[in-house]
């Protein structure tokens, strides 16, 4: 009889946490967060279709500091998942698997994510005339 309780996939408990493991885990966590975050997009579209009053409620929640924090996390997750996704697509072609290449592309993705997330927010604040 097979043991039904056996773990199916990465035996997280037996490996020492490394840089690439964190990035790989973060890809999935960001993906799941974005999955939940789609609800913001759903609400946005529904509120916009319902009229100015419904939209004002949506806007009120999003401009609240907590709303902004969630949107900032959403932006970060989206940019990270997108850039790291490119890394995965490159790996799918069989390239970039050398230890040094994996580390370099990982660092590049993290640096670009931080840079682009901040850039998007600075740009958005400039659009709103707040800067």
């Amino acid at each position, binding site marked *: 009889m097979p043991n039904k309780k056996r773990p*199916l996939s990465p035996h997280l408990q037996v490996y020492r946490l490394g840089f690439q493991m964190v990035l790989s885990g973060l890809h999935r966590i960001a993906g799941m967060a974005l999955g939940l975050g*789609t609800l913001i997009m759903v609400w946005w*579209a529904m509120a*916009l279709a319902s009229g*100015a009053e419904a*939209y004002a409620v949506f806007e009120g929640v999003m401009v609240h500091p907590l709303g902004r924090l969630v949107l900032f996390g959403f932006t970060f997750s989206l940019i990270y998942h997108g850039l790291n996704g490119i890394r995965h*697509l490159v790996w*799918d072609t069989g390239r970039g698997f050398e230890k040094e290449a994996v580390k370099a592309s990982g660092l590049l993705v993290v640096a670009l994510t931080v840079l682009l997330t901040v850039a998007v927010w600075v740009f958005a604040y400039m659009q709103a*005339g707040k800067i």
Partner: protein
Amino acid sequence: MRTPLGIVKGLGPAREGTHHWWVQRATSAALFPLTVWFITSIATLVGSDYQAIVIWVKNPLTTVLLVLFVGFVFYHLRIGVQVILDDYANSRKAKLTGLFLNDAFCLIFGLLTIFSILRIFLGS
């Protein structure tokens, strides 16, 4: 001797062979440019009033790109979550419940969003 089809058929925790793997990559490739467009557009719209955003959505190009974006997002999400369930749901009951909820979530919210966008597009 097994044929490639025989090897693929019924293998993997999803019992679907390589189809999902391929669709995951295809939707990724489609989503990358759409996401760049989406982030840039939304960031540009910050500070705009309700009317300006409605006018933006009503532009036929925006409507088409938004519908494509939302469609690909929910399809990509559905198979992404399915892979996570394949990896971690270690009872058949947990997996089937998860798959059902995942399908329901993506279908309902995907359709709601697309319906809303089309409602704005068709609205006066």
